[in-house]
């Protein structure tokens, strides 16, 4: 690796940390804007003045904001994310407990969404205006117009109450009961995937149609290769740039919380945690979450960058925009 490449790497690492710095500062300032302080949310309505003073001291709220930031960031740098004001739990542990749920939900729904949208997108691009294309376009519009909270409730009503074939709420860890674990995942994953399918199918179809008009696809056809082989091996990969990029963004977003779906299905993910934390002014949890999502987002973005050359060898490195 030459000096230039090294310095490029160094600068991208620097950018990474500057971004994290900016994000954490921004969240501190943003939270500062919200009326009310953690103490109001933690203490009972009839709290005594001694309790208020004790609480302020305990959470360091009597210090100026920059000191709080410094001590927080200092803790973070040593791996200490502090304790939730509200629950008294270690923030790191809380996140560690909930992150797997959100991660699993996010990845599974992306996988399901991809599993649905790749074949649908590819085929609609191959036969635009065909039956599948029309059906999917219609479904897409319908799904777009159905917010997750409506879709989720409909699914629950249909599968849980009317048909009674699926459990509708809650979470069972895999280690406890793998079958139930999967069963409980089905509806939330479907709800989330439905929303993402829309975007994925559109993107893939668009890019795929462009690729299918290229000469090399024609040339592969003229060599008599079977259709599916042409679509999947010769056209799909280079048509999936937008798909991969957007999947990355979407995963980042989903990991950060799928509040509505978590609320509907009572899942112990990070979304509800964040909302509760914001509503109870449990800033320390919010800050950790924002930091975490930002890191995950940036890492996934990097991973996506690394994927481009694998998709299309012509691309050496696309800089994240």
């Amino acid at each position, binding site marked *: 690796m030459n000096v230039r490449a090294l310095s490029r790497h160094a600068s991208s690492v620097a950018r990474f940390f500057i971004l994290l710095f900016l994000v954490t500062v921004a969240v501190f300032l943003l939270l500062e804007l919200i*009326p*009310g302080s953690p103490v*109001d*949310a*933690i*203490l*009972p*309505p*009839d*709290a*005594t003045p*001694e*309790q208020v*003073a*004790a*609480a302020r001291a*305990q959470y360091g709220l009597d210090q100026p904001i920059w000191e709080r930031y410094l001590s927080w960031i200092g803790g973070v740098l040593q791996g200490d994310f502090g*304790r939730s004001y*509200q*629950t*008294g*739990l*270690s923030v790191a542990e*809380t996140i560690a*407990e909930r992150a797997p749920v959100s991660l699993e939900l996010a990845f599974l729904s992306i996988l399901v969404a991809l599993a649905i949208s790749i074949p649908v997108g590819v085929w609609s691009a191959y036969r635009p205006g065909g039956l599948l294309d029309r059906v999917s376009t219609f479904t897409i519009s319908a799904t777009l117009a159905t917010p997750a909270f409506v879709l989720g*409730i409909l699914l*629950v*009503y249909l599968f*849980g*109450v009317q048909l*009674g074939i699926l*459990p*509708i*709420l*809650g*979470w069972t860890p895999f280690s406890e009961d793998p079958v139930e674990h999967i069963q409980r995942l089905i509806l939330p994953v479907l709800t989330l995937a439905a929303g993402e399918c829309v975007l994925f199918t559109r993107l893939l179809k668009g890019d795929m149609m462009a690729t299918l008009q290229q000469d090399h696809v024609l040339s592969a056809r003229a060599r008599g290769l079977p259709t599916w082989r042409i679509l999947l091996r010769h056209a799909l990969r280079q048509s999936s740039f937008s798909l991969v990029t957007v999947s990355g963004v979407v995963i980042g977003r989903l990991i950060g919380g799928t509040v509505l779906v*978590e*609320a*509907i299905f*009572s*899942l*112990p993910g990070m979304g*509800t*945690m964040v909302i*509760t934390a914001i*509503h*109870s*002014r449990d800033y320390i949890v919010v800050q950790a979450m924002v930091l975490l999502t930002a890191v995950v987002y940036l890492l996934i973005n990097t991973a996506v960058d690394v994927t481009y050359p694998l998709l299309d060898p012509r691309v050496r490195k696309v800089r994240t925009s």
Partner: protein
Amino acid sequence: TGCGSGDDDGTESGEPKRGGRLSYAINVETSSLDPAFCGVQSFDRCAPIFGTLLRYDLEKKEFVGQMAESFESTDGKTWTLKLRPNVTFSDGTPFDAEAVVFNWDRIKDPKTLSPSLRIAQDMTWAVTDPQTVTVTLEKANYQLPWALVRGLSAIGSPAGIQKAGANVSNSPVGAGPFVLKKWTRNSQLELERNPNYFETGLPYLDELVIKVIGPDDQRLNALRSGEIDVNWSLLTKDARTIEAEGGYEIYRVPLVGGTGLQFNLNDPVVRDEGLRKAMLMAFDSAQINNAVYPGDEPVDAFLRPDAPERDDALGKFPDKNLAEAQRLFDDYLARTGKSSETVTFTCYAGLPALEQVAQLIQSQMQQIKGLTFKIDAVDGASLSVASNKREFQTIMGATLSQEMDRLYEVFHSEGSLNVMSYSNPTVDEALELTRSSDDKDAVTKAYQTVVGELSKDGPLRTWRYQTGHLYVNEDVKGIVVAGTNSGASAYFQYAWMD
């Protein structure tokens, strides 16, 4: 008073069976299982783990011993807490007077930030012997046993608390019927039988799961789909639906007070008697209930009609009378020289039912010409800030409780929860009597006075008499219902599955 285990068992048919897993759903998660927080914040989660020192028997309408044997006083000032011998916490340490005092001391320490501090504030206590704690008050208070059903009721293992350190909210060690197996916040709390529970043979259940399901209809769905066996609810209409569907037992606990429109009597505008009366006269609880809580009776006084503490002769909420309301309002305008008035109503955002109520109230108020009734919808935290700091004109607030004694803190001019800044010497006096008197009839009379005055003054206008409900699957027997700050719950150690 005597103690009793399974007093109510006889009412159920069949022989109790051991085993099984019961799922119970409630609507909000609690933040802490610290015994110092338990009594006030979450009966449902805490009672199975810590038990309660006393229990209020809804049938007999009296306190009975639960974790403790008895709590008695002769003068209302000195109280003796008798504990049972040989009770141990689930970690094996003894549940004794030292443990009780340790827990109560903790509550009294402001650093603990316990919501029960106010209750403990005026009390002093001492260990008399390992089974006895003596409590002394400065002023007589015959309502003190409530504190041992609620705020001071949960006693955790001192060893466990010390061991948990900062993690105390997450690792409760009690002597109750169940022990914590796993707590997945915002999803479910899993409990299993405490093998060393002192009431031998109890609990019947192997496991108790408490789920958090926010939306009312999702909980109903869960009940219908068999996902849960017992559902918590405040909705009469759901109770009717469920009753009509059949297959469920429904338990009801009438509550004192309810959610309502509270006036800030310190506010220069709203403190005006005439204006307030005008608004009270425009208020139409029947309309609210018909729309949002079908099946609930319209409210005409602070307590439900059948309550012994209500005497209509002493006062009722003013009847709806728009013409009179308009007259009073015009009067108010004339008096203050204004041409119109704006009153802001701070309320919850994001809860459809409450938003609907707020909008209904708004439309009712705005039937008074010249009055603009503005809705300021905020999240729960902002709402409690506004309420605590008394920074509101009118607000949506709750005085939900099973016990009448709650009225003291809410409406006494010195009450710690008197966010309305309500001050009425008659009420103060009557409330003081409810605590200082041992005479049940006198106390009831005093409460009648309070209720009458409140209904007349209307610092708070509720729109329905709230009732806590439990919808219980037919297969579940032996439910011993308890009233809580948020409705109905149960002592699950007596429950069993058929």
